[in-house]
């Protein structure tokens, strides 16, 4: 199997409370992959750690067999829609163009080529006629499509999306699903954080079941079994969550201070 993402022995804390315990899995290339689990199961934390937005206590993650920094231009990230203030003064085109920002063009003007790519991305999500619309005037589904257009404008090989189906209308859902199929046909990999079990089976080829620890990861036929779902959704592990509270309350470091787990390729 060709690897897209590898998560190796990952433990991550939020406000010094562990939300992921020793999670370890590999994901294939060219598939639509769902990261599924109940609320508070560490799905978003996992994605943010892969994107380098949160520092793990231990373990590491790789994309295409490399540390994130070496492949950043091939990776695109779609944060949760609610994570930004949509009252920000910008129009749809402004936001999609942000997908063209790079470290090396930060001080340069936006080029014609950037605009062309952004326009194409808007066309793909059926929002071209909204290019000049203020983002504050968009519906939830339209906002989500703007975020996806921004991500398409990055022209990446792997897309990490955080809950893109939450609070969207039927038209947006259809548009996203069609896009996912197209992306898969182009050999792209899409990893989607998703909490709704009912639709997960129909959307994804491959599923990672999380609930603070890894429950299962594999093709959906293998993972979507009654036993595994029950394990993931059947409530938190009491001992694990008690221990987490204890670690947070007593500010106990998860590793000895001088312990350092080196990344093999850094």
């Amino acid at each position: 199997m060709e690897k897209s993402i590898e998560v190796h022995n990952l433990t991550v804390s939020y406000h010094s409370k562990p939300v992921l315990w020793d999670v370890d899995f590999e994901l294939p290339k060219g598939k639509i992959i769902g990261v599924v689990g109940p609320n508070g199961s560490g799905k978003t934390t996992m994605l943010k750690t892969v994107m380098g937005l949160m520092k793990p206590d231990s373990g590491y993650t790789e994309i295409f067999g490399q540390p994130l920094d070496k492949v950043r231009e091939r990776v695109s990230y779609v944060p949760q829609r609610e994570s930004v203030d949509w009252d920000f003064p910008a129009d749809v085109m402004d936001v999609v163009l942000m997908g063209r920002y790079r470290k090396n063009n930060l001080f340069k003007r936006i080029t014609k080529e950037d605009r062309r790519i952004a326009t194409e991305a808007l066309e793909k999500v059926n929002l071209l006629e909204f290019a000049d619309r203020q983002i504050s005037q968009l519906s939830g589904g339209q906002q989500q499509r703007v975020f996806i257009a921004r991500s398409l404008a990055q022209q990446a090989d792997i897309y990490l999306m955080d809950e893109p189906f939450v609070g969207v209308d039927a038209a947006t859902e259809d548009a996203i699903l069609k896009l996912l199929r197209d992306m898969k046909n182009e050999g792209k990999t899409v990893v989607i954080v998703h909490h709704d079990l009912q639709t997960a089976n129909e959307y994804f080829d491959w599923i990672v079941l999380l609930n603070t620890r890894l429950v299962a990861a594999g093709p959906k036929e293998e993972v979507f079994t009654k036993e595994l779902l029950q394990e993931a959704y059947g409530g938190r592990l009491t001992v694990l969550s008690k221990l987490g509270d204890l670690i947070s309350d007593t500010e106990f470091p998860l590793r000895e201070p001088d312990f350092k787990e080196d990344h093999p390729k850094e």
Partner: protein
Amino acid sequence: MFDPIFIKVLIGTLLLAASSSVVGAFSFLKGESLVGDAIAHALLPGVVLAFILGDGRNPLFLIFGALVAGLIAHYGISFLEQRTKLKADTAISLVLSTFFGFGIMLLSAVQRTGLGQQAGLERFLLGKAAAITLFDLYVFAALAVVLLVSVAVFFKGFQLMTFNEDFAAAIGLPVQVIRFVFTILTVLAVTVGIQSVGVVLMAALLITPAAAARSWTSSLRFMLVLSAVFAAVAALMGTVVSASLPKMPTGPWIVLGLGGIAIISLLFAPEKGWIARRKRAKGNQLKTQRENLLKLLYGAEEREGETVAMTSDMIVAMRRQHLDGLRKTLRSLKKEYLLVERPDGFALTDKGRSEGRRVVRLHRLWELYLTERLGMAADHIHPQAETMEHIITPEIEALIVKELGNPEVDPHQSPIPYEED
């Protein structure tokens, strides 16, 4: 008044105010308005210490002192927020009051020596543009230009950091560097700004122009330009007043001018202004009245099975509406050919009938939705539907119809009237 020196002071002051308001606009959008205020107050001890320890006449020393104090205050706030369990507002107040108290103490000590009076240190409290020496002015004006250029250079970075910092980090932008540059610019903007409005009122210069500008435009670039213009206009007013009246500080006048601009903006701006919003609410009120009238006539036709005409007296009797208001509603319906006036009263046109049918349909659909989806009792749903029938858009209507599977009757067994093709 129009001597060349005054003109120079004037232009300089406008530049100072404009540049700090442009930097402040990003603080405003980030929702960090109070941090700027804290930094401004925290600059006071830095400025006074620079005066005591260094050469009091040299503005470069003052800028250096301000920069150090501002950075300590800024990182002090971040430290308190991250390492203690204090909330942001507590951390900000703590730093603000401690630094400012220390600054006032130093200021009193210097003033007792008589040196302070001579150097016009007081101007840092409330601003006194006319007291600035020409050399100081050149230095600060140069700094203001540096600020404006920096904002232009870092525009993309600041824009993305303010809107979506996680995304900026995800695409590999040097987030730490951009944040540090922004902090430095904020401290410098405050240093520059207090020359005209003083420490105490600095927050107004950082925030008010941006808040006013935001209500006029939804373009970030234009908003920055407008903030600068508003700040410059207010600075013009403050400087002229301060120069004309003896012993009059500049700061309060600039801040009053900004307040006036903000009030005008919040009242009169198109779309976002209070008056525009009132107008919209009024328009919705008329829409509600019109639709209720069409619904009334449609309901009568439904009962009678034929076209019904009603006089305005009959309508007044059936609806609790004043005759004046009703006349206005009738006039607007007639003007759009939704109603015709016949000798025996007002009757629906085809267009009006279709509109009345739509309102009745939405009413019944919503009642059905409430009972089916929210499990509400059939005798509780009418008042809600009375409101929603005016709000539901065609898109939402289509969703409801789809979700309920093209229903035929509402919870009271009245038919749901669809448009006949």
